[in-house]
């Protein structure tokens, strides 16, 4: 469905500056696995580490906001797997977020689990819910599946309100801060929960982004993308389309549930009408589209945008304006920049620098005797 693909290069890059007509391709090529490539990777890691250290020195309020960004980014990264790479629009991810959050909340409050030990349970439950939501995709396509996810999103708050004994119903649920103290091995005291959550979310986000990157490049990731791009062709090539969709939904739900679990530890209070309504799903989608559908760090950029956009507009009025802004931003992005911020920056960057595998034809090292290139390069 989505046409955005990180491998789609601008046409000029396909044929090099080999024959006349001036340089058409990117100015620099960086070959994967060489020293400059490793250097760039190392520089990126160092830069991220420095940014994180800088952010951890910010005042508590700012640091809390950034922690929130990281948590939303994890949730959007989950959505990206199913919507971005598998091409199934989900407006039900608020339910996964909520299920993760409530699982952690209930386990801590009712069963006195340590916060971190609730994470695997939350992930497991959300994975199962994801499989269940994906199950209709055996028979249902596109639009109809979006309706099923809508059903999940709308039902979740109602069910939470109904299951009062467990969830505290409409009044919500408070997790006392003594339960949420950082674990002892960190050496942090209870008052330093902010900094603990900051580093925990940052770490989890890094792991999640890395896992997503590897997953998308794996055999299963190829199956996901081909299911998205052409279901019939994928099926004809032996991909089990239904299984791909269901498993993608499961993994996606699990990651968003993980974000929900962290959200409980971060907020310490849950209510069905607060953060787990359809509006949250729309926030995730806005973030995904804004950051860049099917890009690796789009979720992070998008999360920054959706967390800080309401703050920018809130100086005028509360509430409704944020909704108008989300709506307008969604529509404007679809029109003007369908590849999102990260996608657009990527396209621009590829005009200057391009990372290629070692057997790229433009490298003079191994001249190929293929069919002669047309004298007029494309365009």
């Amino acid at each position, binding site marked *: *469905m*989505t*046409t955005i693909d990180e491998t789609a290069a601008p046409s000029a890059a396909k044929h090099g500056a080999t024959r006349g007509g001036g340089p058409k391709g990117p100015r620099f090529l960086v070959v994967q696995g060489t020293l400059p490539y490793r250097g760039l990777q190392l520089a990126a890691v160092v830069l991220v580490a420095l940014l994180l250290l800088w952010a951890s020195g910010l005042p508590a309020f700012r640091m809390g906001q950034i922690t929130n960004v990281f948590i939303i980014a994890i949730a959007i990264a989950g959505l990206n797997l199913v*919507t971005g790479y598998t*091409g199934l*629009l989900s*407006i039900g991810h608020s339910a996964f977020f909520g299920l993760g959050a409530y699982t952690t909340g209930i386990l801590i409050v009712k069963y006195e689990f340590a916060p971190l030990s609730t994470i695997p349970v939350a992930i497991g439950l959300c994975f199962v819910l994801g499989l269940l939501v994906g199950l*209709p995709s055996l*028979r*249902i396509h*596109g*639009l*109809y599946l*979006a*309706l*099923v996810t*809508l*059903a999940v999103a*709308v*039902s979740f708050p*109602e*069910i939470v*309100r*109904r299951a009062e004994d467990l969830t505290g119903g409409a009044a919500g649920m408070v997790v006392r801060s003594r339960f949420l103290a950082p674990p002892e091995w960190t050496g942090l005291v209870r008052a330093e929960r902010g900094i603990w959550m900051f580093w925990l979310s940052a770490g989890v986000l890094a792991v999640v982004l890395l896992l997503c990157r590897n997953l998308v490049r794996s055999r299963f990731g190829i199956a996901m993308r081909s299911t998205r791009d052409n279901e*019939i062709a994928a099926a004809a090539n032996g991909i089990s389309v239904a299984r791909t969709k269901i498993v993608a939904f499961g993994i996606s739900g699990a990651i968003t549930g993980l974000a929900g679990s962290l959200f409980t530890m971060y907020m310490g209070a849950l209510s069905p009408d607060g953060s787990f309504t359809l*509006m949250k799903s*729309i926030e995730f*989608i806005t973030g995904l*589209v804004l950051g860049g559908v099917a890009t690796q760090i789009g979720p992070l950029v998008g999360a920054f945008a959706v967390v800080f956009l309401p703050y920018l507009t809130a100086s005028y*009025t509360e*509430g*409704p*304006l*944020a*909704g*108008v802004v*989300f*709506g*307008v*931003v*969604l*529509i404007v992005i*679809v*029109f003007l920049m*369908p590849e999102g911020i990260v996608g657009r920056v990527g396209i621009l960057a590829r005009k200057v620098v391009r990372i290629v595998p070692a057997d790229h034809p433009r490298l003079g090292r191994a001249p190929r005797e293929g069919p002669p290139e047309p004298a007029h390069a494309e365009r």
Partner: protein
Amino acid sequence: MELFLERLITGLTNGSVYALLALALVVVFRGTGTLNFAQGELALFTTFFAWWLTTESIPVWIAIIASLIAGFVLGALIERLLIRPVQRRNDMAVLIVALGLFTGLNSLAGLIWGSETKIMPSPFPNGIDDYVSVGGARLYFDALGVVGALVALMIVLTLLFRYTRVGLHMRAVADNGESATLAGVRTSRILAIGWGLSGAIGALAGVLVTPLSPQQLGLTTMFHVFIAASAAALFGGLDSLTGAVVGGITIGVLEAMLTGYVSFIGGSLQQTSALFIIVAILFLRPNGLFGTKRLVRV
């Protein structure tokens, strides 16, 4: 028995409203193959507009007609300016635009007219005593009015689709847009008319439902109606007018009976039960009860 009859009447009335909005969804789906997620919020917006007109001491009937016109214009504009440019790209782009409209229109109504609940006057007599007694149950005139409006609309739509040139063209475009274009149908105009028509139908549903709704006119009034209406439209297969009406009424009656007689569901799981119906129908009959099976050519 009285209670049963009263619940049946409530169900029929609500069902008629669901059927109205479901008709709007079906008209759009037949034209463009898109489920308009923003249909409910579009109706909400035009209803607020009608309410605002009545506060300016404009008679309620004129306000309703004005909101129908506003619905038509808004629908057509949305198709032309927002949907058409991205339609060719892919389904997801259309869905995302519709989601943007969904949040945008709702919040815009809140921004312009405030989020507190409004009392929308009914076009029909709706005093305590305005009812006829049927087998002991009270049949209020405003409920009758809604059912009447549905019947009238069904007749108008049937006549439109069957006997007019525009209706013929709409059917042709829905069936095969390219062939229709080659045969000289002005496809783009027909599509805009289709969206406009559904905007107007939605507006009608909005002004009729709010005086009956327990929440009156608030920002959340139309959401439940939209959920039930999409269940109704799916029930009928998304492309059948009859299916939408049968679906709407079935879901209205089912809902009234379930909330009345099954105490576990009560008043609090209404939406969940409507949505459960959606999922169940999709599982059992992906093309709905009246829908045509879609063939995919490779």
